[in-house]
């Protein structure tokens, strides 16, 4: 049973470019969340996708956008890259079973994509 897979594992871009990161959730999961982890910091919530819609968003500018596909996989897009966007981008998946119970303890993280902006 494959866990959460992210691609690519590493990426180098220059300022002003655009980047797309990809995530496949754990089998059976339908919800995908994206987090940014800067060096020496904890992960910061970017947004969450469920039923192909953005359901909640953290404090990130519109340059950060996403998409969820019918097969539950997801993409994170960042436009007009800044040096400060250099970070580890983590994807996490969970099952939103609709029971009202927090799914966060069943949040499974991928190994992340390390983005370097030069």
């Amino acid at each position: 049973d494959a866990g959460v897979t992210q691609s690519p594992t590493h990426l180098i871009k220059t300022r002003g470019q655009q980047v797309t990161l990809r995530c496949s959730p754990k089998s059976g999961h339908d919800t995908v969340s994206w987090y940014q982890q800067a060096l020496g910091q904890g992960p910061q919530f970017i947004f969450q996708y469920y039923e192909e819609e953005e359901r909640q968003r953290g404090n990130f500018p519109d340059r950060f956008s996403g998409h969820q596909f019918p097969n539950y996989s997801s993409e994170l897009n960042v436009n007009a890259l800044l040096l400060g966007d250099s970070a580890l981008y983590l994807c996490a998946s969970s099952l939103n079973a609709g029971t009202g119970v927090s799914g966060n303890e069943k949040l499974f993280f991928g190994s992340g994509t390390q983005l370097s902006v030069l």
Partner: protein
Amino acid sequence: DQQVKQNSPSLSVQEGRISILNCDYTNSMFDYFLWYKKYPAEGPTFLISISSIKDKNEDGRFTVFLNKSAKHLSLHIVPSQPGDSAVYFCAASAPANFGNEKLTFGTGTRLTIIP
């Protein structure tokens, strides 16, 4: 505005002894707290959680204590083992729209277990 704080960036503990990792929070709306463990080149993995209606939750060698009045929680690992060496993140969530909770993480504590 750091709503979840882990003031100790690193901690070294002798194998077999107790490891105590601390976490403070400022947002009184947080009602669910979690600890994640992270090895290098891997994503964080869930360790243990506690609801705000409890003050203690235990799972094997891991126990989490919550002091709501002090807005403080701690993770106890007894006995500590070399495989426990990792970065530990404290995280919290607040009630949101149904099924739409997000996690707020601390900056992490690097735990090193000395054989």
